Every structure is written in C-alpha cells, then in structure tokens.
C-alpha cells in the first residue's frame, strides 16, 4: 500500500517538475507554472477571493446534487412495486438521459434567470439520471430469495422495502453518488462559464479573457481539490456503512466450524 503511494508521489513530483521546467524555458504566459499557481492560490486564499467564489460554486453543486439525487433515488425505489408506471417511466427516462444537459442551459436561464437557480437546475438534471439508474440497477439486483424468506418470516411490504430492499440498494446508491460528484461540480462550473459574475467557473472564464493563465489554473486546481475531498469523505462514509460487505482487502481468513 505504502509502496503505491511512494510511486504516486514520485510520478506527481516528476510531472510538476516537468511543468515548472517547461514554464522556465517557454515562459509562463501560456502555461503558467506550479509555483505561480501556488503563490496566487495563497494570495487569493488570504484575501478571501477564493472562498468568495468557491462558496457559490459549492452551494450550486451541493444544491443541485441534493435536488437531483434524492428524487432519483426515491423514484427508483418506488418503481419496484408498480410495473406499469415502471415501463412507462423507464422509456421516458431513456430520452431524458440522452438529452445533453448543457443544451438545456438556455432554457434554465430563461425560466430561472442568470442566478444560482439555473446552475442548480443544470446540476440536478444531470445528477438525477445518474443516481436514478444506479439505484434502479440496485433495485433490480435485490436477491429474490432474501425477499421471500423475509416474507415467510412475517415482514410486511413496507418492512421489506425498509429492511431488505433498501439495505441491498445502498451500495448501488453510493456507486451512483461517487460517479455523480464530478458531474455536480462540472455542471455548476459550466453554468457559471455560460453566464455569471461569480463562482469558480466565472474565475476561469475571467482569467482566460484576461490572458491570466495562472488564474485559470487556480480555478482548475481548486475544483480538483473540491472533487477529491468530497470523494474521500464519501468513501469514508461508504466504508463505515458497508462494513458488512466481504471485501478481499480485508484479507481475514474465515473462521471454521
């Protein structure tokens, strides 16, 4: 495990070094440099600019994440018991999934204005389908034998949903959420690039207009940090919640009778 981390750090260091050298040789105008980016981040973190813009992006991404993920998950769970609604909805969902969400931005702006509402809608429209489909796969994969045996033990329909279906679906929901995180941030940023006067997407856009390559990279690095740390938190929660799963990495020999 530690060996992997040594290798990763080494490779990362080499890449950063190459970037720095290239910047020294060609000049930082087009590609900036790691040291310049670090310095600018430090300054912007100090004067509050980074937080000012970051919080809008975070709020839009998080808001859209919740507005999209919760209905996506609930819809998939509800479809289990309603075969007619299910086949109808799955057909419509396939169309909804196929539409490129960024193409909807003009509509969202028309309906919700240029404020955060349009960004939340954009994020939600992307997240909904990701979480819906992953949850639905989980619902389909519930072990029928577990359901039948719980029925024989006297479980009601609601108890089946809460005590058998939901716990078996949770790993799938987490799978969907992990895929969705970058999409949520990306949605918020794309929304900001298209129209806004604040947010990390705005920073990147503004930097590019101003030929300030360093600012563009600052925006990129901050976004990367956000996605990685949210992903790490989610893995931590997932590992705690899914302790019951047999993972090969546990490497514990099974006890024998």
């Amino acid at each position, binding site marked *: 495990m530690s060996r992997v981390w040594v290798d990763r750090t080494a490779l990362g260091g080499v890449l950063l070094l190459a970037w720095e050298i290239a910047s020294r040789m060609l000049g930082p105008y087009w590609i900036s440099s790691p040291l310049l980016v670090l310095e600018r981040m430090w300054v912007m973190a100090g004067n509050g600019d980074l937080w000012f813009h970051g919080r809008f992006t975070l709020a839009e991404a998080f808001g859209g994440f919740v507005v999209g993920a919760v209905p996506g998950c609930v819809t998939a769970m509800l479809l289990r018991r309603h075969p007619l609604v299910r086949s109808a909805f799955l057909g419509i969902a396939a169309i909804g999934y196929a539409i490129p969400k960024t193409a909807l931005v003009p509509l969202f702006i028309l309906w919700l204005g240029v404020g955060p509402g349009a960004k939340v809608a954009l994020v939600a429209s992307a997240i909904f389908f990701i979480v819906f489909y992953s949850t639905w796969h989980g619902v389909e994969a519930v072990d029928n034998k577990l359901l039948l045996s719980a029925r024989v033990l006297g479980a009601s329909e609601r108890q089946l949903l809460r005590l058998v279906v939901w716990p078996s679906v949770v790993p799938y929901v987490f799978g969907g959420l992990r895929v969705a995180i970058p999409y949520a941030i990306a949605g918020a940023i794309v929304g900001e690039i298209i129209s806004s006067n604040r947010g990390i997407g705005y920073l990147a856009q503004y930097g590019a207009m101003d030929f300030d390559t360093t600012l563009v990279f600052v925006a990129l690095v901050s976004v990367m940090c956000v996605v990685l740390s949210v992903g790490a938190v989610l893995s931590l929660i997932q590992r705690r919640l899914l302790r019951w799963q*047999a993972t090969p990495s546990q490497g514990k020999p099974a006890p024998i009778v």
Partner: protein
Amino acid sequence: MKLNMPTPAATTIGCPLLELRQLGISYGDAASGEQRWVLRDIDLVVREGEFVTVMGSSGAGKSTLLNVVAQTLQPSAGQILFRGTPVGGADMAPNPGSNRQIGYVTQDDNLLPWRTVWDNVMFPLTIAGRPSPAAVEKAHALLKQVGLDRWANHYPHQLSGGMRKRASLARTLVYSPPIVLMDEPFGALDAETRAQLQADLLNLWSTERKTILFVTHDINEAVALGDRIVVLSGTPGRVVLERQIDIARPRDPELIFKAPTFASHYDAIRGCLRGAGHA
C-alpha cells in the same frame, strides 16, 4: 402443541396440524393445453409434534412442495389446511408469513448480509414489534444452543457454511412457529458437520416439541431423523410410499445403520426410488 411428549415414539399420534388435500402444482397455461404438472394429487397429513421426512428422486417436486406449504408458490389445485382451517389453496391468494405459523429453513441460509448474526436472529422478532425481554432471553438461549453465542456480532460473510446454517435455524426457531419446513438444510455441508447438525436438530426437536417437515435426498438422513418417511416420485410427482420408522429414540444419526430394522427401511425406500427412476 404442549400436549405432546417431548420425544414422541412412532406410535404417539397428535392432532393433525397440517393437511394437504389433493394438492397439485403445474406450470404453463391450462387453456392452451400446455400445462405441465409438477405435483399431483398430494394427500398428506402431518400431525402435531411429528417429524416427517420427504424423499424423492431429483425433480420429483420436493422443494416445490415446501414452497407451496410456505405459500411462496400458489398451488394449482387442492387445499392446505392448518389445524383444520384452510390457509391456502388453488382458490386463495398466497400470503406467506401472514400468521407466522410456519418456519422455513431453505437450502440457502438467506441470512441478511448487512445484519450481524444477532440482528439476523432477532429479525423475525423486531418486525413483529418491540421484542419482550422474555423473547430476547429466548433468542440468547437459542443462539447458545446452536453454539453461536460467541459469534453474535459477526457478519454472515465471516462465518462458515455450517455456522450460517445454525444461525438460519436459530432465526427460524426464535419466533416459535409450530411447524418448521426444512429443505435439504444440511445438503451442502461436509459429512462431519452434517452429522453434528443432525444430532443438534434432534435435540432441538425434542426440547422445542416442533412439528417438522424435512426434505432430503439422503436415505440415511431420512431414516435417522424421521418418524415417518414420505416418498414422492414420478412425473408429475405423487406420494408413492409412506412408511413409519419404528427405530427408538433418542437416535444417533451417525450410527443409525446399526439399528436392527434399518436395513429393511433402507431397502424399501431405495426400491421405491429406483422403481420410480426406471418407470
């Protein structure tokens, strides 16, 4: 239930607990004439406190029979009576677990993987409401009885097949169903573990005074455990033999072949299964 002796001899007869009348199961559509019967004209009475083993060649519908009794499968003909009252049949919608009179130990242990052994055993109690202290006490005792008290906080994937089977058995017995259906519960286990579990089952049966309907394809097991053996055979499956096993209890499943009448039982059943196989 309490009227019975803890270890009823073959001659002790309780009241009929479970009655199957002209039971039949078919797949396919009757109207198009493509109906295929799996079981037909099954008449069977299981008495209070009785240990009945069901045998049959593979495909004779043994598991199907248990699924119908557990109401996870709707019969196509006939009736199921419990203590004289119809609870299922061709003309009734199946409602498994409706009155919690039936415990069902399937071939797979069907433990919920996200629950510890203890939470699995408590599952039938918690879904019926808040368990009483007496019920919790009983769950503790059962877990100890099946030898899993030290494993209460482990997850199913951390246990061996034999231990999961024991947990599954404890989960079934914890809500005291009057009748327990068992579908080749020890089939996938090694010989030693199986012998141990058979002995444990006989112990539990004598202390808990359960009625058991036990499916197996192993003649030794059927003779060692049962008061009576029912042999299903043919296509569609019908009852071709019912035989009382007069071997005195307590029995030692591992040494059952030493019983004086064992050979005659064995031959009768084997002959029946073979005859059916060639038919």
